[in-house]
């Protein structure tokens, strides 16, 4: 949280200030004019550092405190780097911070899984056991809904669950940011699922069977007459699926992030009247909401995965009808 961030920065800065102090005294022993110059410069540096600390705390308070027209958000490492070292590189990092944090999750998960996969043994160690448990649980869940032939979708849907869950939870770490709290990430995931489901639908039922399904599977003359009504209805229903998937995930995760930010701001606001020390800017009122955020993150990842599985089953269940 912000208090820890402020604490770390304050520690570094007090050390810098002490250093500055020692150096100043040493130079005072040698020459007078040089002393004045050095003292002024070091004082300016220390002053700038302290100003930056206040700027960081102020930004944190501002970003968390007032909603205004901009959704309140806790600051992340890239924002901090942008404040401390304003340059074109940190500008670019700030512009792309959403995909960058998503890439961090991908790299972390890949590294973790590849490390376990390389050293896999028949009798698993603790880490391999944990990953096997997750894979088996997801596999049972998906095969339970899709049937045995759903096994080929388990990698896609399982990865979806793990990726979304880790991305959601990452926002709760101090200085990190969950990419799913922005619409672009969730829309990208929903579009991936949508395109894959349509592709699988075409593969499972053939092009004519796919269009037939969109016309409502007419079997009698009355149903054939209703086709012009059924067709747009089904298309809108299909398009509503990725929209609802993405908006649900985006709304839930950005809502929980906003909740945390507002309560952090409230905690800082409550003690700001008493001019607290820099290492304890406020009361951590947001802690109970972190547990709520953990629950919401897990449930939303699960719901995204389950709904995608159900869309697959809806699109490809005609294949099973032939087997009966």
């Amino acid at each position: 949280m912000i208090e820890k961030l402020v604490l770390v920065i304050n520690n570094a800065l007090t050390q810098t200030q002490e250093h500055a102090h020692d150096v100043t005294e040493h130079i005072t022993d040698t020459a007078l004019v040089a002393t004045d110059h050095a003292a002024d410069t070091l004082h300016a540096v220390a002053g700038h550092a302290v100003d930056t600390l206040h700027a960081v705390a102020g930004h944190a308070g501002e970003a968390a405190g007032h909603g205004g027209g901009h959704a309140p958000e806790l600051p992340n490492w890239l924002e901090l780097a942008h404040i401390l070292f304003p340059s074109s590189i940190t500008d670019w990092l700030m512009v792309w911070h959403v995909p960058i944090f998503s890439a961090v999750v991908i790299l972390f998960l890949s590294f973790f899984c590849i490390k376990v996969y390389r050293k896999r043994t028949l009798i698993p160690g603790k880490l391999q056991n944990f990953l096997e448990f997750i894979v088996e649980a997801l596999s049972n869940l998906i095969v339970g809904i899709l049937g045995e032939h759903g096994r080929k979708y388990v990698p896609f849907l399982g990865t979806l669950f793990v990726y979304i869950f880790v991305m959601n939870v990452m926002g709760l770490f101090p200085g990190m940011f969950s990419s799913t709290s922005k619409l672009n990430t969730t829309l990208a995931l929903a579009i991936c699922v949508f395109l894959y489901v349509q592709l699988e639908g075409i593969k499972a039922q053939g092009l004519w069977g796919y269009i037939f399904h969109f016309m409502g599977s007419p079997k009698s003359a009355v149903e054939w007459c209703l086709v012009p009504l059924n067709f747009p209805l089904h298309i809108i229903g299909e398009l509503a699926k990725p929209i609802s998937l993405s908006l649900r995930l985006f709304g839930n995760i950005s809502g929980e992030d906003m909740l945390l930010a507002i309560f952090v701001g409230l905690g800082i606001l409550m003690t700001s009247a008493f001019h607290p020390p820099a290492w304890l800017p406020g009361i951590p009122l947001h802690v109970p909401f972190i547990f709520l955020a953990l629950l919401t993150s897990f449930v939303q990842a699960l719901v995204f995965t389950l709904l995608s599985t159900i869309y697959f089953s809806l699109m490809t269940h005609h294949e099973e009808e032939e087997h009966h």
Partner: protein
Amino acid sequence: MGAELLLPLTVAIAAVGSGLGLGKAVGMAMEAMGRQPEAAGKIQTGMIIGAAFIEALTIYALVAVILLK
């Protein structure tokens, strides 16, 4: 009767609807679980999916309010 009053009221009304729907859904799920405890796992899964659908409607209202504010 400006936007500052009506926009949060929108979310509140959506929340009422979703509260009623969720109460009914979860209540029915609990009853079914009580009647047949061995099917509790499947019922729970179905309940979570249903709850997500119902909750999503309130989230749509919230997103609309955020976009308009």
